[in-house]
């Protein structure tokens, strides 16, 4: 048969078609300007997404969110309180200097020591838990010393980026906040605050970790991250071809983006759990039956289908089904208004209850939908929209505990249970907005935090999640997908659950 020449022709055509366009430019429409370029001085997911284009961490995620060493070659536990990391040789900063053990020790000292950033303590210190100190063993090895066993350390190291000691000392706290000297695939050319970041491919880039496929030839020379906070404008920029990637594509724009022949929707399972915190310290939600009634009153499937265009996973527990230690056997809080009314009657409220649902501006639509559905089931709900920080203060753990219910969310970027259970459900946790307290849960969380055996550790969290499910301190809602709109000219890119932009292999045809 004459198939062979045809195949060769096809291959040649494909080769021509996919030949990288040199000096191409990638443009991204992004929701938020970075708060700072100092990797140690923020607690913002968006800031981290941008920083990760210029900086690397000791540990990263591969596309399936598995942990892989990045600036180190491996990690090993010497004992439950000591972890050793072998440094990857030949990694260079954008300035040309080689990364050393001293840079890593410096980075973590800056994160851990009080007042290390011009008198201010790093807001990322809490992400390092019981890490006491990082010490240099020799030129290629550092050790993490902990005050108590903390097996989640490698996962939590994905939240920290390594900075250059000499650059940081020279630039000072102000300099590192506005310029950079990272090890990442792109380096900063210019940051026009509130408008855009112009990045250029870094020739010095070492290529990435071994778990991540090797970087091919550089397709794009420049990346412009254009800050477009307004949803409609961001979508319009994508549709017009002004940008190639947009983050936070609103669910209701999916149809528009898919209908356009030049654009497509990309999604990744998110890591942020949405829930309605119920104030367990005062009537009527101090009664577990009322809290369960609220869970039965919501038609979450309908809400996900209509409000989120089906782009979310229904939750009956605390965290993502992809998270370590998730309990897959939790029963469902089925939509059942009759059962909700029966539970209310059993709790002594045969005529229903009157409550207020607090929400901030971005959650207004969801809050109004929840209120309407709860009201139908006898939980007559008013919505009170407040400014974000005001509402958060109202629901702070050391606040007055006056509210009834609050729609909020908690991100779990590490997909490890410590990161979400301890702040939101441990007695007195900083994000425990339901003011929930169950000694059994506290004991399980404490045990899980120390346990180094993965199977045993998972069991602790599964038990805790089952208890929490039954106690229902929240109305469990959903885990939305992170939605991105992309140009069909884009190749070599997929969204990451971590929110990182991962621009290393992107091509624009």
């Amino acid at each position, binding site marked *: 048969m004459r198939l062979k020449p045809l195949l060769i022709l096809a291959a040649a055509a494909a080769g021509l078609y996919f030949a990288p366009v040199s000096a191409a430019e990638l443009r991204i429409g992004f929701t938020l300007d970075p708060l700072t370029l100092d990797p140690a001085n923020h607690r913002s997911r968006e800031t981290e997404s941008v920083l990760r284009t210029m900086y690397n961490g000791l540990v990263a995620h591969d596309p399936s969110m598995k942990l892989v060493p990045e600036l180190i070659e491996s990690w090993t536990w010497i004992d439950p309180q000591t972890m050793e990391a072998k440094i990857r040789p030949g990694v260079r900063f954008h300035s040309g200097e080689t990364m050393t053990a001293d840079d890593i020790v410096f980075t973590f000292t800056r994160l851990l020591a009080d007042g290390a950033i011009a008198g201010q303590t790093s807001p990322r210190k809490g992400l390092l838990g019981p890490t006491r100190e990082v010490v240099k063993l020799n030129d290629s090895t550092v050790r993490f010393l902990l005050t108590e066993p903390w097996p989640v350390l490698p996962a939590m190291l994905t939240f920290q980026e390594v900075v250059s000691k000499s650059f940081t000392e020279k630039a000072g706290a102000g300099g590192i906040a506005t310029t950079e000297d990272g090890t990442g695939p792109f380096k900063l050319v210019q940051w026009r605050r509130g408008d855009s970041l112009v990045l250029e491919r870094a020739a010095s880039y070492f290529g990435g970790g071994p778990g991540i496929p090797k970087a091919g030839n550089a397709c794009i020379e420049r990346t412009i991250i254009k800050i477009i906070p307004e*949803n*409609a404008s961001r*979508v*319009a920029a994508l549709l017009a071809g002004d940008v190639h990637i947009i983050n936070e594509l*609103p669910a*209701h*724009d999916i*149809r*528009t983006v898919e209908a356009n022949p030049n654009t497509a929707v990309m999604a990744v399972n998110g890591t942020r759990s949405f829930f309605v915190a119920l104030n367990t310290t005062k009537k009527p939600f101090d009664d577990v039956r009322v809290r369960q009634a609220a869970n039965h009153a919501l038609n979450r499937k*309908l*809400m996900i289908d*209509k*409000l989120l265009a089906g782009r979310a996973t229904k939750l009956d527990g605390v965290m993502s089904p992809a998270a370590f230690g998730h309990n897959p056997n939790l029963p469902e809080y089925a939509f059942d208004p009759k059962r909700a009314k029966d539970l209310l009657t059993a709790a002594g409220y045969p005529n229903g209850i009157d409550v207020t649902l607090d929400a901030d*501006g971005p959650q*207004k*639509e969801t*809050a*109004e*939908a929840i*209120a*309407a559905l709860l009201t139908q089931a006898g939980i007559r709900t*008013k*919505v*009170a*929209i*407040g*400014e974000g920080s*005001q509402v958060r203060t109202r629901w702070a753990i050391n606040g007055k505990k006056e509210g009834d219910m609050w729609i909020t969310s908690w991100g779990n970027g590490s997909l490890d249970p410590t990161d979400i259970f301890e702040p939101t459900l441990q007695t007195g946790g900083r994000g425990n907005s339901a003011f929930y307290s169950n000694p059994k849960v506290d004991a399980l969380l404490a045990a899980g935090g120390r346990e180094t055996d993965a199977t045993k550790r998972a069991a602790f969290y599964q038990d805790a999640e089952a208890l929490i499910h039954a106690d229902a301190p929240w109305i469990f809602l959903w885990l939305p997908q992170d939605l991105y709109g992309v140009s069909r000219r884009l190749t070599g890119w997929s969204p990451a659950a971590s929110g990182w932009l991962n621009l290393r292999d992107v091509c624009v045809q």
Partner: protein
Amino acid sequence: MISRLGKLLPDKLARLAGLGVLAFIVMAAFAPLIAPQDPAATDLFRRLQPPAWLDEGDWAFPLGCDALGRDILSRIIFGARVSIFIGVVVVLLATVIGVMAGLAAGYLRGATDRLISGLVDVLLGFPYLIFAVGLMAMMGPGVLNMVLALAYKEWVVPCRLVRGETLAARETEYVEAARAMGASSLSIMVGEILPNILSPVIVVGTVRIAQVIILEASLSFLGLGVQPPTASWGSMVADGRAFILDAWWVSTFPGLAILLLVLCINVASQAVRDALDPRFHD
């Protein structure tokens, strides 16, 4: 011929505008009777349903539905209550305060005038919307707080007007005569000057109602207005902004309602000015 037409046309326009204002007031007053649907009733199956004349439309929901499946027409009808109530109450409150302050400043002069005029100048230094946003952020959202936040600055407008008119009036013969007859300052201000300067105050008041309605819509648009599920035109426009690409009707119709009411008030108030202002009489 042309001049007759020119006179008749604004007159007819003004009458039309007056009828328009009246229609909005009737709509607001009888909202529960007029509205085809419950403005707060949500139905997620009707999310972003288009207006009746488009595909998938339904005449039970003539202007379509918002993101929660609520009837837009009914929400506009109920929203007229908020806009007109706040417009009228704020201007009334501001006029009462402004007239008193303006009379005192213009008639008493001296330290009183310096104090009031100083305050007026300071308040005028702030952009209106930013001032109101600041106050609302401090006091929290709600109709009453919105009235207060707007009235805090709105009184400056009648105050300046009244002060100027009073300054002119206090030198007139009828005031001099009253003073000569031994009338007290208070009775001169209220009994003599006020009735003579009332018509410009009324004219400015009618114009300002339109301004306040726009400000109310702006504050609601920024999420500082009335609390859900109460409908307000400004917040309806804001809610629809997210869907402007694929569901234009959510923002457009309440926006048109704002436009129409403000236009009617402005045209009608021009007629009021023509009727009351002696300078415009032949």
